[in-house]
């Protein structure tokens, strides 16, 4: 352990002796510099290690000059100071390394001096216990940063520097004023001393003014909203290495000083400051960043927003009246926020320097080539945007959980800001991951960014560990281990077949682990996910070659997170895995070559859903119980919370008003993933919806109205999506709408909340997996062979792919619900359930929707398989073997279930009983005869009847048939003309043009357009409001004074 004074002294000495050392040459100077940094870092690390392991328990107090504290200046290193110093020195070292290896603008020794001074100043600022000394260190830091900011080759850094100087001077004026006035009126400069003399009752009058002045000086440095124009200019104009250390380290020092001063001064209105300035800063900068074109300024907005959030958190931590576990959560939230921001943001700034491109649009395709860079960038962006399992996610979660319930609006606003953050961050990600001809070369060393990311990853695991430790949520260790295994798959990126086999292995192992699970709701879905996942992942191999090496790890990750959802016992853990699923599926969808925009919409909708769920969960918490289980309800809020939680599930199911993401995301996602997206992932919405209806809705006041509304939504979804599907020209988009439409039926079943309804919903869930998995897998194979998903380009493939056609036909028959196969039983159950409740209008719409569905069923069969075969497909082969196997397995399943529905219904019965209903509302007779109140349905008889009648017809035909000649493809009665090419006689484009004339008002994308209008409206507004930052120094300074006056006004008059 090293005396903290030594750190400061040695750094100071080294800094000023560099001027002499430069005569020995550049290398020598660098050596001295690195030695100093190394020494400092190891020193603070040893102290921090001492705190971490518990060897040091009390803050280290150092007297200077032998005077005892109230009289002499002293330093105090506490836990957080030490940690922060480690972070600052680490990032400082990384920034210095980055800068020195940049190669083009080698910093002169002066810059190294300034760098050392900067680190020294900020360390001193953290350590000092004296208000005036604090001012001195602040000034050292500021002057060093003025110089460093000005040191960029770009002349605009001078402008930034000058703005910084002026605002910084004003700020330090206030700090100094506060400090000396404190001395005058408080009688001491020592923090502890003053703290002991101040009681909150003394506030009012002079002390209030002084405290406000002092804290206000620090607030300016913390870049809060109306007075942060200069900070954004620095982010934009200065050298990224300097910005990285400023944003990643120094500002955090100011933050610590601010929080500490507020505590010592016992300032009573710190929460109000947080709520007014912190929250405003957070929201405003998250929205202002939407239309930002300069990437560094965009990150600047993000940094400013994070600082606002931190100030808000500090407000809650210091003045929010938190006690016990809440306080611990908030502290952890703050620590995680700080760490997340420091490491992610500095990485991002390093990367901006490596690419050297400022305009966002020019970042197009940056990440295409470089695997490492892509990993670093994605990790940082994901962590910044709060994606699990990165540290930002846990910070946000702790934060939301810790906020007292009466501040629910804060939760809503913060989550709103988080959505806004996702919007612009992933707009950026969309641009960077899209295809482009641009060629980029990395200028500089990638080591600092990698080191940062490594630390970030380690911290992410640590923070996740802490989360589970503190919340006492139990998570299946097996599951986590298997998720870890996904990383191993990631490493095997060079061999696709290895990845495939490993993925299958993991899924089979999971199935083996959970083989004895109870068949209740969770167990049912668990088996559903694993069996379905295994079958569908089996089919992915041939098509996976088109996609990135991270396809399989993410696939396994998303499937396993679905398992996590099914295994969840509390709402919070459900939320965690829900987010994991959303993010990993987003990353997979994003791999589709045209899916960039689509996946962005999907992510934003998912985020809205996820955060709605989180705020709903927040409402469910009561008192000390911050992790509500499924059974816990806080009666007062339960209607709202049920609706909020339901929003998430509805969005995932893509029902009527929130369906806008579905078409593009399904249509453009990787072909191997679409079956899983449609067959399993959207069923997680079903799972959640059942949970909500069973556990939450019974406690609400208007449950029957809500349920009827849900059923209506479901029915309208089923109808309109079926109608939309008929007018799509892309096979996957047809199936996308079809999926959504089918999920609408399931929603009706859930909303019925009767045993028959649940049976129908569960049956249809499995059935939908069977036939939609079959259809999507077959389509994946077809696209793989033909290379197109555009329907008018296909046709006649029955001649080349008979097996696929057979399977596809069975899938379509099941989809349409035509008797002998398994589709009909689901329809029958659903209609019986509706009849039982006498929901006539829902029944009418649902049945009508199934009629409308025939339109797209025929369209799919015809345009893909029938009609004329094109010349270019004359040599097309049958789909690859894995896909063919999966097709046949699923086709066999639909046939088996069609004859014997009890294969599924046995399971769903158990689920319905475990949900607390007396029985399924129907009875069996001999495993294939279902009897309900209204009649019965004998699947076996129907199958025998249909097959028998078919055989009779066939026999009859062969008895009387004429001499049959199979003619050629183009040999059609064509008015005596000889068709010249298959294309000229193939009818495949816009099959329902005539229908469009009848239904055109209904099929215009009203919802999509209105969402787009809202988005564009907000974007245009924030784009205009951004002009608040005029770039004029006087205006910036003026806003500082105006804000000060505002603060004085509201606090003095007690308006707020």
């Amino acid at each position, binding site marked *: 352990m090293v005396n903290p004074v030594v750190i400061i002294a040695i750094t100071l000495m080294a800094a000023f002796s560099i001027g002499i050392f430069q005569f020995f040459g550049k290398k020598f100077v660098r050596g001295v510099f690195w030695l100093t940094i190394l020494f400092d870092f190891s020193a603070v690390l040893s102290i921090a290690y001492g705190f971490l392991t518990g060897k040091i328990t009390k803050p280290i107090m150092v007297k200077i000059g032998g005077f005892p504290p109230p009289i002499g200046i002293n330093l105090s290193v506490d836990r957080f100071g030490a940690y922060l110093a480690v972070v600052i020195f680490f990032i400082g070292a990384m920034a210095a390394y980055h800068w020195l290896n940049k190669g083009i603008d080698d910093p002169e020794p002066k810059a190294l001096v300034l760098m050392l001074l900067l680190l020294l100043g900020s360390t001193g600022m953290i350590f000092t216990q004296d208000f005036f000394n604090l001012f001195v260190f602040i000034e050292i830091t500021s002057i060093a940063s003025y110089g460093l900011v000005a040191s960029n080759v770009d002349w605009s850094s001078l402008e930034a520097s000058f703005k910084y100087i002026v605002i910084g001077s004003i700020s330090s004026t206030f700090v100094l004023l506060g400090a000396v006035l404190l001395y005058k009126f408080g009688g001491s400069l020592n923090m502890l001393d003053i703290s002991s003399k101040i009681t909150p009752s003394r506030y009012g009058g002079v002390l209030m003014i002084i405290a406000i002045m002092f804290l206000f000086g620090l607030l300016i440095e913390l870049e809060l909203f109306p007075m942060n124009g200069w900070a954004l200019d620095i982010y934009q104009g200065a050298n990224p290495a300097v910005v990285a250390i400023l944003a990643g380290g120094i500002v955090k020092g100011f933050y610590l000083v601010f929080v500490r001063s507020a505590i010592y001064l016992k300032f009573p209105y710190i929460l109000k400051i947080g709520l007014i300035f912190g929250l405003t800063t957070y929201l405003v900068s998250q929205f202002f960043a939407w239309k930002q074109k300069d990437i560094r300024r965009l990150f600047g907005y993000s940094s400013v927003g994070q600082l606002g959030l931190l100030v808000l958190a500090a407000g809650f931590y210091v003045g929010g009246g938190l006690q016990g576990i809440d306080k611990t959560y908030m502290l952890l939230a703050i620590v995680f926020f700080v760490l997340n921001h420091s490491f992610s943001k500095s990485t991002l700034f390093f990367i901006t320097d490596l690419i050297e491109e400022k305009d966002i649009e020019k970042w197009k395709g940056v990440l295409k080539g470089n695997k490492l860079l892509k990993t670093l960038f994605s990790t940082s962006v994901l962590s910044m945007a709060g994606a699990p399992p990165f540290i930002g996610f846990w910070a946000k979660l702790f934060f939301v959980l810790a906020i007292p319930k009466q501040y629910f609006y804060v939760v809503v606003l913060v989550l709103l800001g988080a959505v806004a953050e996702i919007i612009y961050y992933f707009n950026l990600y969309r641009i960077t991951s899209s295809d482009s001809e641009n060629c980029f070369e990395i200028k500089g060393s990638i080591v600092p960014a990698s080191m940062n990311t490594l630390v970030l990853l380690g911290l992410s695991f640590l923070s996740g560990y802490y989360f589970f430790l503190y919340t006492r949520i139990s998570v299946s260790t097996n599951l986590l281990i298997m998720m870890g295994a996904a990383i191993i798959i990631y490493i095997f990126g060079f061999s696709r077949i290895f990845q495939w086999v490993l993925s299958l292995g993991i899924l089979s192992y999971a199935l083996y682990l959970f083989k004895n699970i109870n068949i209740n709701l969770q167990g049912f879905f668990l088996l559903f996910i694993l069996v379905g996942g295994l079958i569908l992942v089996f089919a992915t191999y041939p098509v996976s070659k088109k996609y990135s090496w991270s396809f399989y790890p993410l696939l396994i990750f998303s499937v396993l997170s679905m398992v996590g959802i099914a295994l969840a016992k509390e709402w919070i853990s459900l939320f965690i895995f829900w987010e994991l699923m959303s993010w990993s599926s987003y990353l997979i969808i994003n791999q589709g070559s045209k899916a960039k925009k689509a996946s962005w919409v999907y992510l934003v909708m998912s985020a809205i859903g996820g955060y709605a769920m989180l705020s709903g969960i927040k409402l469910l918490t009561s008192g000390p119980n911050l992790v509500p289980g499924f059974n816990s309800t806080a009666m007062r809020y339960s209607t709202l919370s049920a609706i909020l939680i339901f929003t998430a599930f509805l969005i995932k199911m893509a029902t009527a008003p929130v369906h806008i993401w579905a078409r593009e995301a399904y249509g453009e996602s990787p072909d191997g993933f679409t079956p899983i997206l449609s067959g399993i992932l959207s069923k997680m919405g079903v799972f959640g919806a059942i949970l909500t209806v069973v556990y939450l809705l019974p406690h609400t006041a208007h449950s029957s109205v809500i349920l009827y509304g849900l059923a209506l939504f479901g029915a309208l979804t089923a109808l309109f999506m079926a109608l939309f599907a008929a007018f799509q020209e892309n096979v996957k988009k047809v199936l996308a709408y079809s999926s959504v439409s089918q999920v609408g039926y399931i929603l009706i079943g859930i909303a019925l909340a009767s045993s028959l309804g649940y049976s129908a919903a569960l049956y249809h869930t499995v059935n939908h997996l069977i036939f939609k998995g079959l259809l999507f897998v077959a389509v994946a194979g077809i696209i793989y062979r033909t290379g197109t998903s555009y329907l008018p380009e296909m046709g006649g493939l*029955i001649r080349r792919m008979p097996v696929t056609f057979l399977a596809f*036909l069975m899938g379509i028959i099941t989809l*349409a619900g035509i*008797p002998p196969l398994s589709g*009909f039983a689901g*329809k*029958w159950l659903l209609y019986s359930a509706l*009849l039982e409740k006498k929901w*006539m209008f829902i*029944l*009418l719409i649902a*049945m*009508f929707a199934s*009629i*409308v569905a*025939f*339109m797209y069923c*025929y*369209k799919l*069969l*015809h345009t893909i398989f*029938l*009609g004329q075969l094109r010349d270019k497909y004359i040599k097309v082969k049958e789909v690859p073997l894995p896909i063919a196997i999966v097709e046949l397995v699923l086709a066999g399943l639909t046939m088996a279930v069609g004859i014997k529905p009890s294969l599924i219904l046995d399971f769903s019965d158990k689920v319905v009983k475990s949900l607390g209903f007396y029985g399924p509302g129907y009875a069996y007779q001999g495993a294939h005869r279902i009897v*309900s109140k*209204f*009649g*019965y*349905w004998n699947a076996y*008889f*129907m199958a025998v*009847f*249909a097959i028998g*009648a*078919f055989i*009779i*017809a*066939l026999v009859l*035909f062969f008895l*009387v048939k*004429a*001499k*049959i*000649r*199979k*003619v050629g*493809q*183009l040999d*059609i009665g*064509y008015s005596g003309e000889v068709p010249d090419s298959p294309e000229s*006689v*193939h*009818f495949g484009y816009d*099959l*329902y043009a*005539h*229908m*469009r*004339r*009848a*239904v055109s008002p209904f099929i215009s994308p009203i919802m999509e357009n209105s969402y787009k209008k809202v988005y564009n409206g907000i974007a245009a507004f924030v784009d205009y409001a951004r002009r608040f930052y005029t770039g004029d120094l006087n205006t910036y300074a003026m806003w500082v004074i105006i804000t000060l006056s505002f603060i004085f006004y509201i606090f003095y008059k007690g308006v707020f």
Partner: protein
Amino acid sequence: MWYKILYGLLVVVGGLAYGLLLGGISRKITARLHGRRGPTVFQNYIDLIKLIRKKTAISHGTMFFLAPMFRLLGGIGVLLLVPIVTKSAILSNFSFGGDLIVVLYFMVFGCLGMALGAADSGHPHSALAPTRGLAQMAGYELPFLISVIGLAIAHNTVSLGTLVSAQQGGILHWNLFQYPFLSIAGFIAMLGMYMAYPFSVVMAPQEIAVGPPTEYSSTFLSFMFTGRSLFGVGKYVLFMDLFLGGATNLLEAFVKTFAIFLFVVFITGVFPRYRTEQAVKFFWTYPVVIGLIDFIRIFIK
């Protein structure tokens, strides 16, 4: 069970004879409406015999080959799943409790099969016709479903047998008089179901050749012909069961189905053709509004 199958075959044969005869009568009546003499009422029999005894036939592929069988299967299915004479062990066929939904879906079976076969022939007209048919189906099914669901809720059953027995006891107990508006909607929908004028845009002779079976010939065509006749009879019986109180003996069944048949023929004989979207719009406005009157009455009750 075996005797049921035997009688089932007999019903199919009888239904075919009746269906062909009705077709012939329809041609005769239409001719008379046009001021012509028209063919004999047995013309359809002759046509069928000729088609069966054609010497050659062509095939375009597997689906093309199987489609007539599906069509026939659909016809047989519909005919055998609706009870012709209720409470008769033989002539209630294979109907069972819950058959209404099954029949609704089985009706699609034959159409879908034919559509697939037509599409497989590779003739653009054949492919075009089913899209018109499906669009029109989306039109007429709405009023039809309104009437069917209305009746099912009103009588609390999805069994045709129960529906029929609920209408026994006098002519005023028929759904035609109990729920007149539902019946009107249902019968208008039936016109669309027959795909004859004014809703004949599917076949649309002289416009898209002869619609789906453009490429079909000889034996294949004879099967389609048979299936269509059976299908027609099945639908007449279905509507008889739904609205006209079913039948207690065979004679009554003949009379009632013939009455429905005459209704259809007299409408189709005099109207020109709707375009697809006109037909759809028509179905979605007048019959729906009419049907909803009774539907809401049942809903409130």
